[in-house]
Every structure is written in structure tokens, then in C-alpha cells.
């Protein structure tokens, strides 16, 4: 049996780590489940409820501003570009669908727009996606689109489906640039069926089954997979609009962050200063959180410096030192001196941190570690800009995630190793290795500390067993 305090600390640490993994795993499982659902055949879903989204009801309606229209135009340009890209990617597919589309209109369906109706489909199967006039209030925001959508049956013609330009010419007014299914509907109220969001919208087919959750057997054949038809999907306009607004807002937020307003900064500094002076904030200059973070940073730095030192010394190998040019010699010297200076700086900083820490705590030792890990929130001023990270193959993505996990694991492992060392080594040091309990402890500790708990050593008596 381990001593109580040791037991408590070790078990707490390990249980904590386990719970963290568990949580992460659950999150992953959820996200996997989501992906899997998407990769399964898309069956024709229920028609949308005629009720508009509540949230949008509360939004004040307003006319589209000229700026909005301009944004849309920009958006459309972007779409055009996207199309160019796509052209390259799925030439085969689009040409295939273009040729087959006419003869065998299969996948495409009812237009979800008000009263939109597939022109050649079986009327029984055709279910109007949404009663046209429901949402006067909601459509406020997009009045024009609403109007535009009254071009019945026009929707399938998509400005961007180059392969199948519809016979209808596009209305000139704004949003009709993207005559998507849900024109005339409020943002936040997607009513299009997956089938109808397929790009190849010119042809017709049976529309969604009438009841939620029930998929008519006859319509089963409509199921398609992303693999087959994924490239023909198209995001609804209202979404695109909101999203583009969102990204432009974020860009502005970014901008604010990068360009510091000096006046505000000064005012803030002034405030902090006054807090400190007037209100005599006696707390230490550095918070515990910061100390922890700084210590970690110093640890990291020490590591890097060591590495750099080794690289510097190892450039040509020790043996080749004699043959170094004077430039190389000098380079090395300057490097070493630089490193030296850096180390001094770090040591100084560490001293400061120690002082700060003492201020904080006094001599009182406290148990349990909350701060072991919770510290990313200390990283101030992070921003939510939607940067992109580009990968070019699934292997690359997998390697990255695997490495990431590995690094995290190693950190956790190192942390645990340190804790185990702190707690366990004193136990074997202190007592005489006599009793079997002690030997068992010794063996277990060896396995834990030297073999990462994966393997175990064996102790055999010098004489055979009787």
C-alpha cells in the first residue's frame, strides 16, 4: 500500500488524465458520427416545416442596403472563381452529368421555392416545399429575393451551372444571381431538400416524401451518396449571405486587433496604473497562471538553446574542428556568446518568477494541482479569424493529427513521470529492501518509471524453488 498522500495525488492525476481522454474521445466519436451520417446515402428528407425560424422573426427587418448588394456582387464573383476551380476538378463528372442529365433526369427535384414545381415530375410526388406567402415579415431582409423568386420554376437554372444553362434568362436584380431553391425565404430557413440542392437542377424528379421521417419506398432510389453527387451540391444563398457577412465582420475585428488604438491603449494603461496605485493592488506582479506559463516557456527555451548549442557544435563534427574556416569559427563563437546571453536572461527571469511565487504563496505548501494544465486561457488576445490550414492528402492530415496526439501524450507522460518520480522514488529510497512487499513495490516502480508501465522486470532468487 502506498502512503495516503501519495495515493491521493497519483490517483487524482491519473483519473484526471483518464477523464480528459474520455472527454476527448467522446467529442471525437460525436464528430465521427456526424461525418458518417453525411457519408451515408442521402435519402430524401421531409419537406420543411412551413413555420419560419423563430429567431429570424425577432430580427428587425430592413431593406438590403446598397452595401449588401455590393457584397453580394463580390460574393458572386467569388462563386464564379470557385466554379473555375471546380471545372478543373470535376470535368469528367460534370460532362457526364450534363450528357446523362437530359436523357435520364433522376436526381433533381422540386424546387423549394414558393410554389416551385418540377415541370415534368409526377404531380403526386411533387410537394410544394413551402407555401409561398408565409413569411412576409421574415422576408423583410431579403425582399428582393422574395420577389425574384416569384419567377416560378426558374430556380433550377443556376447561373453557375455552366453545364446546363436554363432557358430562363436571369433577372437582373440582385439576389437572383443565385437563384437557389430557397429564394424568397428567410435566412435561417433552409427548406431545400438535399436533392434539390444539387446543382444539376434543370432536370426534374419526384420530390420529397410527404412526411417527416418516413421515406417512401418508391423514393428510395433517390438516395445518393456524397461520393456520387457531392460535387453537385450547392450551399443555399441565405447561408452564403450570412456567412459572408460573418467573415467580413471577423475581418474587421481582426483589423481592430492588429491596429491598436493608441488613445484607447493609453486609457487602458492609465486605468490599470490607477488601479495599482490608487487602490493599492497588492497582488504580485505576476499571476500564478503567468508564472506557470513562463516557467513552461523557459523550460522550452532551455530545451531549444541546448539543441541549438548541440547543432552549433556538431556542424562539422568535433573531428573537423581544425579545418573550420575562420568565418565558421567566428560564427560559432558569436552563436555561443549569444546563447550564453540568452541563458543569463532566462536565469534572471526565473529568479524574478521565484520571487513572485514566494510573494504569492509564502511558505505554505499546498496540495493538488489545478494549474497543471489549464493554462491556455492565459494566452491573451487570441482571435477567431477564419484562417485556413491547407493539407494535401489524407496521410498528411493523419500524420498531423497523430503527431499532435503524440506530442500531447508525451507531455502528459512526462508530467506523470515527474509526478511519479516525486512520489515513488522516496518510497524505495527510504526503506530497506527487505520484505516481499518492499520488493514488489520496487518491481512495480521500476516498471512504471523505467518501462513506461509497459513491461516488467523479474526478480529470481539465486536458488531454485523447492
Amino acid at each position, binding site marked *: 500500500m502506498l502512503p495516503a498522500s501519495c495515493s491521493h495525488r497519483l490517483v487524482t492525476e491519473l483519473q484526471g488524465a483518464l477523464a480528459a481522454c474520455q472527454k476527448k474521445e467522446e467529442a471525437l466519436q460525436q464528430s465521427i458520427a456526424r461525418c458518417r451520417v453525411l457519408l451515408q446515402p442521402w435519402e430524401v428528407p421531409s419537406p420543411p416545416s412551413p413555420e419560419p425560424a423563430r429567431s429570424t422573426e425577432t430580427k428587425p427587418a430592413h431593406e438590403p442596403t446598397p452595401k449588401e448588394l455590393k457584397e453580394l456582387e463580390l460574393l458572386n464573383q467569388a462563386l464564379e472563381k470557385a466554379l473555375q476551380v471546380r471545372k478543373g476538378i470535376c470535368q469528367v463528372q460534370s460532362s457526364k452529368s450534363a450528357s446523362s442529365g437530359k436523357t435520364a433526369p433522376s436526381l433533381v427535384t422540386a424546387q423549394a421555392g414558393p410554389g416551385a414545381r418540377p415541370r415534368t415530375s409526377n404531380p403526386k410526388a411533387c410537394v410544394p416545399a413551402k407555401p409561398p406567402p408565409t413569411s412576409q415579415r421574415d422576408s423583410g431582409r431579403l425582399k428582393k429575393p422574395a420577389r425574384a423568386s416569384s419567377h416560378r420554376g426558374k430556380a433550377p437554372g443556376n447561373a453557375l451551372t455552366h453545364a446546363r444553362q436554363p432557358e430562363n434568362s436571369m433577372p437582373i436584380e440582385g439576389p437572383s444571381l443565385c437563384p437557389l431553391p430557397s429564394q424568397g425565404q428567410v435566412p435561417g430557413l433552409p427548406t431545400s431538400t438535399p436533392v434539390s440542392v444539387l446543382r444539376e437542377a434543370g432536370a426534374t424528379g419526384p420530390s420529397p416524401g410527404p412526411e417527416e421521417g418516413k421515406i417512401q419506398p418508391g423514393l428510395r432510389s433517390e438516395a445518393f451518396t456524397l461520393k456520387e453527387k457531392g460535387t453537385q451540391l450547392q450551399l443555399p444563398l441565405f447561408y452564403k449571405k450570412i456567412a459572408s457577412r460573418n467573415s467580413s465582420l471577423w475581418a474587421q475585428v481582426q483589423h481592430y486587433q492588429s491596429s491598436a488604438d493608441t488613445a484607447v491603449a493609453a486609457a487602458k494603461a492609465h486605468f490599470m496604473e490607477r488601479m495599482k496605485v490608487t487602490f493599492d493592488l497588492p497582488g504580485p506582479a505576476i499571476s500564478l497562471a503567468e508564472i506557470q506559463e513562463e516557467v513552461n516557456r523557459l523550460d522550452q527555451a532551455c530545451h531549444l538553446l541546448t539543441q541549438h548549442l548541440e547543432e552549433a557544435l556538431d556542424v562539422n563534427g568535433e573531428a573537423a574542428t581544425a579545418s573550420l574556416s575562420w568565418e565558421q569559427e567566428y560564427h560559432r563563437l558569436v552563436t555561443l556568446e549569444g546563447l550564453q546571453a540568452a541563458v543569463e536572461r532566462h536565469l534572471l527571469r526565473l529568479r524574478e518568477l521565484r520571487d513572485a511565487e514566494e510573494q504569492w504563496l509564502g511558505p505554505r505548501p499546498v496540495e493538488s494541482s489545478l494549474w497543471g494544465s489549464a493554462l491556455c486561457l492565459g494566452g491573451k488576445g487570441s482571435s477567431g479569424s477564419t484562417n485556413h490550414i491547407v493539407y494535401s492528402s489524407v496521410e498528411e492530415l493523419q500524420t498531423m493529427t497523430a503527431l499532435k496526439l503524440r506530442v500531447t501524450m508525451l507531455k502528459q507522460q512526462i508530467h506523470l513521470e515527474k509526478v511519479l518520480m516525486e512520489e515513488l522514488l522516496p518510497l524505495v529510497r527510504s526503506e530497506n529492501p527487505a520484505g*516481499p512487499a518492499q*520488493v*514488489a513495490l520496487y*518491481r512495480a516502480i521500476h516498471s512504471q518509471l523505467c518501462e513506461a508501465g509497459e513491461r516488467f522486470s*523479474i*526478480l*529470481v*532468487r539465486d*536458488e*531454485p*524453488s*523447492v
Partner: protein
Amino acid sequence: MAQSVVVQVGQCGNQIGRCFWDLALREHAAINKKGIYDDSLKNFFRNVDTRRNGDGVDISKGKIRSLKARAVLIDMEEGVVNEILQGPLKDIFDSKQLITNVSGSGNNWSVGYKVFGSQYRDQIVEKLRQTAEHCDCLQCFFIIHSMGGGTGSGLGTFILNVLEDEFPEVYRFVTSVFPSGEDDVITSPYNSVLAMKELNEHADCVLPIENESLFDIVSRINQMVTSGKPGTTVKPESLITLNEGGIKKKLQEKPFDTMNNIVGNLLLNLTSSARFEGSLNMDLNEITMNLVPFPQLHYLVSSLTPLYTLADVNVPPRRLDQMFSDAFSKDHQLIQADPKHSLYLACALLVRGNVQISDLRRNIERLKSALHFVSWNQEGWKTSLCSVPPVGHSHSLLALANNTCIKPTFIELKKRFTRLYKKKAHLHHYLQVDGMEESCFTEAVSSLSSLIESYNELDVTKGLPIHDPLRLNIVI
């Protein structure tokens, strides 16, 4: 699937070989009804398209065209080989597989080994090579010879050496016919002892056979057949009774063929589990692995049951159990030995036919109390279940025993050798052959002695209380 090559040397070897090939063909004919060249056939036979030039091209799949035995026939006289070539088996051999001479070895081991050995070495290697090249995975050489004569004994063991040099990876199983007490060849003790040394050193596994035992078995079969108990008749189709012209009345007339058939059957059953499917396969390499605990102790006493099938099949389970009991009786061993009352080092049961693991286990449980096993191998059983029964039987059993009961044979051999050697009788016939020295004799006999000594050492442990050696002592 792996292949085997039969090397039959000398008169005896070729006679047995002839029976073996005949039986092998019949067995496959009975099982392979479609005439397709399959993996099991491939084991002993090549399928050759003879319409092509000369040697023909091997066909690996499809219809059987023309089967060629994977065999090399060697004799320093022509008689038997010529007989074979003129007999019904002539199609499966061709001249490229033969090495013959007309002079014979004069019952002299050293003539076979030293004279013909060096004279024919290249030719032998060449023939073996050719045969081996037709195999995509050569696993085993079966050498069939006798110990008492000159060619089989001398050249046979010489070939054993050659095989070890040239094909170190390929197993060497030797079927050796040991001379009986009243052998008509006077020098047979010399030949046998000299050959024994070679077997000791170069064989992976030796299946000793004694003509006397075979003869006794044949006599019993005869008795059985002629006794004509009401309702009991030997089925004419059974393998033992079957040979080229095989019908039962010939039993008395041609005992040798029947005897050789038994040996042929031994080889067939030995390889059956490797050739045919079953729920517990046994490859040839498993035989040595399981039955040879120490390199030199590789002499396996074999028994074959049932030897004949009776027409009335009334009590199958009892007959099944009888088959197992018989396999351990003295009367069914192919060499004069009594395994039941000696010490077993290991034992293998190769079962064919509709026998299941539970039958096997029941019989092992039943029999094992009556048997003595060496202390460190109390459960020294190796088993196999081949689902294809031999022709004419519903099931069969080949028992292979590594048992100290072989020791008397060796002692007897040594005794007869010593009797001759003390008088230096006939020694000069040997010593005049190039490369033969007296030391050859002394070394051979001491090799035999040490073999006997090994068996002695094991024998003394028989019946002693078993003490388990001390185990490792783990601290915690």
C-alpha cells in the same frame, strides 16, 4: 504442397519401391475420380505432356496426362529394375531415372559405398538434381534399401551422404530392411553395422523393418483368410492383399509381394496426412520434430492396423478401438520388438478415415496407462487425422514409436558383428577395397555401441519414481 522423391536402392529397395508405386497409383485412382492432376498427386508424381519433346513439360494443373514417378531407381544389377521397366509400371519411369550396372556389389558394403559410390557419384547427383528440379518444393527423400546386402546397404548409405551434402534442407527418411537372425548373407552383420553408422549420422529418421516380422504378419493374414470362419472373409479390395496381380489365392504363393506391400503401405500412410486433407494435418517434418528428442535417437518402430478388413462390419466402435489396441501389440510391429513393455520416448498415431478427435482421445486415455513413457515426456503423443481412408478400409492407423524396444535389434546386430569380427572373418574382402581400413569397423561398432548405451540410459529410468526438476524461484 511439398513433394517427396523416392530413392530406391538395391534389389530389396526396388522391389519395395515397385509395390509402393503400384499402391500409390491405385490409391490415387480410387480417390481422384475426375482424373485431375491435383496437389495430392503432385506429391509423388509429375504430370507430363509426353507429346512434347523428350522429357516432356510438367503440367501443374488440369487433366492428368502422363504421370511420372518422382523416383530414382538404383541397382548395381539389372534384374529387378528391368522387371519393373517391363511390367505394368513401365510408363511412370523412364531411363533418365535409372542407374544400373551388371556386376553387383557382392554383398559387400564397401563395394557399394566406396567403389560404386565414387564411381557413380556424379551420375547420382545428376539424376537427383534432375528429379529435384521438377519439384517446386522438395521436402523429403525417401530412401528404401536393405541393410544386409551390398548395394542397398553400401550405395544406399553413400547416397544418404550425398543427399546431406547436396540437399541439406531436405529431409532424409530411410526405410531400412534389417537382416533377420538366419540370414543367408554371411557378411550381413558387417554390412549392417557399417551402414548403421551412416544411418546414425546422416538420416533424419529411420523406419527399421524386419523381414521376419513381415513374414509373421503375412502368415497371420493367410491364416485368417484360409481359416474361413463363417461370415468372415477378407475383402478382396483391401490394400494389403492387393498387388499387381493381387488376388488372395496368390498370398501363399508370393509372400514377398505381400510383405513388400506392407512396407509400401507404411510409406503411403506415413505421407497420407501430408497429401490429403483432414482435420488435423501432419506434415512430414512434424514426424522428426515430434518423435526425435535427441538427434541420434531417430529410429521409429512402426505398426500398421488393421492389416485386413473383414467383411462383416457389425461393431464399428469396437473394431475402431481394436485397431488402436492392435497397434501396440507385439504382433503388429514391423520389426520384432515389444513397445508395450519398453520405454516410450514418443509416440505418433496417424489415423485415416472417419475417425474423430474424440475417438483418438478416448483410445489414448484407454491405452496410456498400459504404456511406459519417459519421465520428461509423459504425454508424448503426436496425432493426425486424415479424412481420406486407405482403399478398401474405412479407417486405418499407423503408429510410430520412438521406443527403447528397438534396442535388442541393435544388440543382436552387434553380437553377430562381434562374432564375425573376432575371427576377422571375411575381413579381407572389405579391406582390399580402396579407402577401407579396420578403423572403419571399429568406428562403426562404437557408433552402434554408443547408440545402444543411449537407449540403456533411458531404459534404466523406466519405472523409477518421477522427480520433477526444481523450478525457477520468483521472488515476488
